[in-house]
């Protein structure tokens, strides 16, 4: 495995929650609460969890759309966590993002050609003719016709808009792309088209992906490692195949059993968790998962479990007091 492109150490993102007449910040929302992960160049880490688990916030911290509260983000040997906006600019070329809803991430008043040329303008690259050639090349790479450059985003279908979003993200030939639910809003037959495109681009350009999604089957398909998040923390991290074969954390097991499989011969026994995901403003004591965990003990209610190596496979870590 090559050297790590991205190293995140004990990253925390706490948001003040303003309350009362004077809007004083009395409470803290611990959206991301001590995340550590490492991503080798050219590989993909999948980030899975339910709404409010902090997966999108973590992604936004890494591309520095948020200024993290504490912790470290080392990207290509530079510490990004404390950098000012101006000193970030050269690094932004290497670090891009793809959003769930391509409509909202594309300027509806600009033609696709202008949208795709903008990254080059911002970084003062080439002349008009060069940029025009680059735009046509990008459209070709993501499987859109050349005449797409003279059309507006609303003229395209959801899948095509996501292709435009991908074209913009790869324009500056970045090293890392944070993909926040890139296929969740797409129809089934379009999802596989976009996933194939993303895998092709990764192979051709040596891209690394941080792939955020709630669909575990999709995440497993594209990822080398998978991290399961719950209430701002990683509760389990392992190789993609290992985590599905050998899930250790009761939350991971419940998540896997809850995905409906498209095969009526295997109507599996769902592990149905009771209750909802607790709020990150007022997280439970001890292990954040204990109120929903079928195996919880007094120790789980009192003591936060550390992320520790799971017995057996190397690189598999789990945050549970017990070997279940």
């Amino acid at each position, binding site marked *: 495995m090559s050297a790590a492109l991205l190293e995140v150490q004990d990253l925390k993102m706490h948001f003040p929650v303003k309350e009362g007449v004077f809007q004083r910040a009395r409470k803290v929302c611990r959206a991301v609460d001590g995340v550590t992960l490492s991503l080798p160049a050219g590989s993909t880490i999948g980030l899975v969890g*339910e709404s409010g688990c902090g997966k999108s916030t973590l992604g936004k911290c890494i591309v520095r759309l948020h200024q993290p509260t504490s912790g470290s983000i080392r990207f290509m040997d530079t510490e990004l966590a404390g950098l000012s906006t101006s000193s970030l600019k050269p690094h932004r070329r290497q670090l891009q993002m793809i959003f769930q809803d391509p409509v909202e991430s594309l300027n509806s008043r600009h033609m696709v050609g202008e949208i795709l040329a903008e990254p080059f303008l911002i970084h003062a690259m080439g002349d008009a003719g060069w940029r025009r050639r680059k735009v046509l090349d990008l459209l070709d790479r993501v499987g859109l016709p050349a005449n797409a450059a003279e059309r507006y985003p609303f003229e395209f*279908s959801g899948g095509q808009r996501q292709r435009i979003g991908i074209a913009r993200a790869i324009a500056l030939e970045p090293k890392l792309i944070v993909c926040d639910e890139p296929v969740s809003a797409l*129809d089934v*037959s379009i999802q596989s088209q976009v*996933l194939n495109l993303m895998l092709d681009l990764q192979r051709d350009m040596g891209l690394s992906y941080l792939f955020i999604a709630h669909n575990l089957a999709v995440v497993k398909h594209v990822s080398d490692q998978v991290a399961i998040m719950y209430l701002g923390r990683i509760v389990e991290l392992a190789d993609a*195949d290992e985590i599905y074969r050998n899930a250790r954390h009761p939350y991971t097991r419940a998540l896997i059993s809850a995905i*409906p499989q*498209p095969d009526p011969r295997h*109507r599996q026994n769902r592990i149905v968790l009771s209750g909802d995901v607790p709020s990150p403003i007022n997280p439970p004591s001890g292990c954040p998962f204990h109120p929903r965990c079928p195996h919880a003990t007094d120790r789980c209610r009192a003591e936060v479990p550390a992320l520790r190596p799971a017995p057996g496979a190397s690189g598999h870590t789990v945050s549970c007091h017990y070997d279940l």
Partner: protein
Amino acid sequence: MVLEVRDLVTTFDTDAGTLTAVDGVSFPVRRGRTLGIVGESGCGKSVTALSIMRLLPQPMGKIRSGSILFDGKDLATLPTEEMRKIRGGRIGMIFQEPMTALNPVHSIGRQLSEVFLLHRTRNEREALQMSVEMLRKVGIPSPEIRIGEYPHQLSGGMRQRVVIAMALACKPDVVIADEPTTALDVTIQAQILELMQSLQDEMGMGIMLITHDLGVIADMCDDVVVMYAGRIAESGPVQTLFSTPSHPYTRGLLNSIPRLTTPRKSRLPIIEGMVPSLAELPAGCRFQNRCPYRIDACSVQPALEEVGPGHRSACHRWRELPSLPVSP
């Protein structure tokens, strides 16, 4: 059979002319069984549900022809007043986004009581008592307290339980659920699906479940209807349809979804292109532009033919399909 849709045609008047969103769709919903309707955006699955409930957007949406038989009546032509008695009473509805199905300015108790007051009792206290019981049945903790709360105070999963309580309040014969778990998290989806199944076991209603998720279909349904661009591409018992899909669209969909058993980072077989818009449908089979097995005969619409017991497909080449290569 509690409900039967026969040759339903539903159209919309738009600036671009009259568009046919549902074009000759027929299927039965049976007591105690779940019928799944699956398809991608624009296939007409939700319009079919709205047609049955007679909730088509007015004045654009119209049922052009066909019938919807329920309890000896044809819902397609029933007077509005009579339809109102059936809707929410003997036919219940569950929608995708519980927040839009619930009224934000009325308490849970008031909204649920309204259903009982409309269909079951005139006594308000009794209605409230029935509401508490119903909330308990759908697994809402401390329902006596919850009836005083407002929709925004509940989580998404709890709100969907309230919507299910409303849909089942009057012990309906049929429940129409349009993407009931799409907006929910995976573990909450599991809770809601489990709840719907156990309530069906107990109350014996027929469920018509509309979804784009083939996993949910495989998990929940007895029979499936696959829709494409307003028509039925294939229908049949769930086991048969998943084991021997007999329409290239069904087969393409099943092959294209990544599963936990798919080798990682392998190329997924895809369906090329995208769903045609209703304004520019090809003559003949509507899937032909995306179909890898297109032949000249496809410019004539194939009939929905019986290909096995209870199994139908609208493809000229269904007989050869098993021998045709998956991704040519």
